[in-house]
């Protein structure tokens, strides 16, 4: 597509040149042919790499569809394809409760992050108060502190109040994300001020402007922060691994990490477990593809 548009845009100039000098035309077509060939090679190389990237997942799926006994042959062919491995995941692991735990903790974290982060951002962006700069810098420090360096004190904190093995222990330390405040602030800063001035004339409070004007206009920011927090919480292993030891409360990654060795040489069962563990997030990706990609491009959010 890009080459086509380039060519049509270039052509008027090329036409005028063709009239001026016929030898130019020959060089031009030779050049076009080289570009075309180059683009073909690009496409070929890229398809090759894309297939290579899909290979591990394809192989996992192939393995999961075999009976366990067949997995000792390194071949793509399946003599007796079966969904048995997928069925056994549900009878032999707590996959369904892992799903539930992951869903509850991730959704709750995303909700708390979006609500508290956007409210704080609104105050920093739109309201006047003393010590605003202090508050700004105080929150900025948080961007510098990676959650991983806090695991020891956080663990003692939750241990001291007897909150280990609760979903709150998973949610609370992951919810206050300084970066979310800054993403929302940046977004609010870009909204036209005339809108809230008009609302102020009608006597609307700050909270009301936040609720009825700022938030409805900030859907892209809400989507980016919400989806990212959700995915990030869902995939986090280290922190939930520390605070969740009750198998019924484990999230998907913690569950998978704990049962990892249990299947032994039953490779079909292991792969079925892995694929079912990945399924919800692949669905999230397919549903929110555009938001996720735009969110990364706009904010550079990373786990």
């Amino acid at each position: 597509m890009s080459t086509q548009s380039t060519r049509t845009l270039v052509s008027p100039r090329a036409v005028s040149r063709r009239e001026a000098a016929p030898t130019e035309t020959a060089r031009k077509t030779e050049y076009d042919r080289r570009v075309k060939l180059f683009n073909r090679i690009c496409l070929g190389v890229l398809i090759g790499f894309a297939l290579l990237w899909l290979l591990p997942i394809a192989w996992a799926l192939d393995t999961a569809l075999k009976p366990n006994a067949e997995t000792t042959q390194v071949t793509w062919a399946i003599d007796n394809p079966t969904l048995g491995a997928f069925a056994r995941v549900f009878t032999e692991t707590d996959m369904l409760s892992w799903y539930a735990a992951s869903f509850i903790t991730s959704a709750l974290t995303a909700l708390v992050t979006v609500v508290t982060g956007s409210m704080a951002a609104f105050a920093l962006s739109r309201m006047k108060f003393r010590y605003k700069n202090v508050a700004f810098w105080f929150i900025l420090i948080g961007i510098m502190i990676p959650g991983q360096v806090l695991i020891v004190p956080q663990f003692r904190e939750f241990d001291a109040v007897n909150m280990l093995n609760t979903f709150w222990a998973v949610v609370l330390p992951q919810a206050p994300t300084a970066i979310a405040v800054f993403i929302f602030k940046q977004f609010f800063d870009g909204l036209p001020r005339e809108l809230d001035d008009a609302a102020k004339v009608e006597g609307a409070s700050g909270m009301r402007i936040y609720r009825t004007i700022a938030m409805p206009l900030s859907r892209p920011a809400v989507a980016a922060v919400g989806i990212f927090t959700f995915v990030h919480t869902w995939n986090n292993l280290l922190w939930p691994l520390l605070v969740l030891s009750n198998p019924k409360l484990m999230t998907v990654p913690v569950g998978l990490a704990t049962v990892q060795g249990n299947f032994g040489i039953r490779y079909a069962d292991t792969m079925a477990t892995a694929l079912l563990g990945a399924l919800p997030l692949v669905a999230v990706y397919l549903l929110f593809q555009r938001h996720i990609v735009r969110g990364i491009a706009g904010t550079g959010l990373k786990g």
Partner: protein
Amino acid sequence: MTTATPTRTAPVRNVSRTGSPDESPRAAAWMLAPFVILYVLFIIGPAIYGLLLSLFDTSLVRGGLGSFAGLGNYQEALASNDFWSSLWHTLWFTILTTPPLIVLAFVFALLADRVGRARWFFRLAFFAPFVIPSAVVALIWIWLYTPGLGLIEAGLGWFGITAPNWLGDPAWAMPSLAITTIWWTLGFNFVLYLAGLQDIPHELYEAASVDGAGPWQQIRSITIPLLGRTTTLVAVLQVIASLKVFDQMYIMTAGGPNFATRSILQYVYDEGFTNFRVGYASAVSTLFFVVILVVSVIWFAIVRKQEKVA
């Protein structure tokens, strides 16, 4: 501030004089409070508490802080072989993953941008692994690396290459984890580069092609220089993400064989939660934090410089 007509500013001022909630500090405090309370309780508080713990011989199994150790924990860490080797493993992992994750992501994005067609497919192929939990990635790659039964060994054998014992050989375990990580996280950098490429105006390429510049020349003199900022961003996010590695090692090698892949975060985990040495683990965390801080500061310096040039 920027109301259109003067007639409109008058009532605004009236409202604020009669105490518009927007002007009152209490309203702002209410808006800030939920975040700040969580932030103080679960981020700033633990950060200070962690610093405090690092100065004591605190144990996980005994209550209280234990006896005051001063800088003893730090001295012990800096004199400990285990600390330095886990720091080195983390750096080694960062060195193995960062260049390929930048170069490959750049090349793939460049190709996808040039090809133009079927972008959704390439994004799916390269980015989908990034949203999969690390535990799933680990299970799939353990299977791919399994001696005797793994697909990679069979694939290499097809070309007549004898595969190493990927995760079992201390020399190969880290490169194996790096390969897995490259497969897993490349998509993130790919998307960042793809966005950077879309910001380059097409007229530049058109002008260059009218001047007869070939594709390779265009890439060298237009694309690479204009993506400088994206590259800085990708590089720093990548270095920080790689330094924080834990999951892959924990699940795939448990830090082995013979501790050859124990990362700094796993060292914290082992000391704090297996050996119950909370004070010491906090000191190691703090040292790790300093490393990350240094990387961030270097990043800020580079970005400042780039902005001055631009």
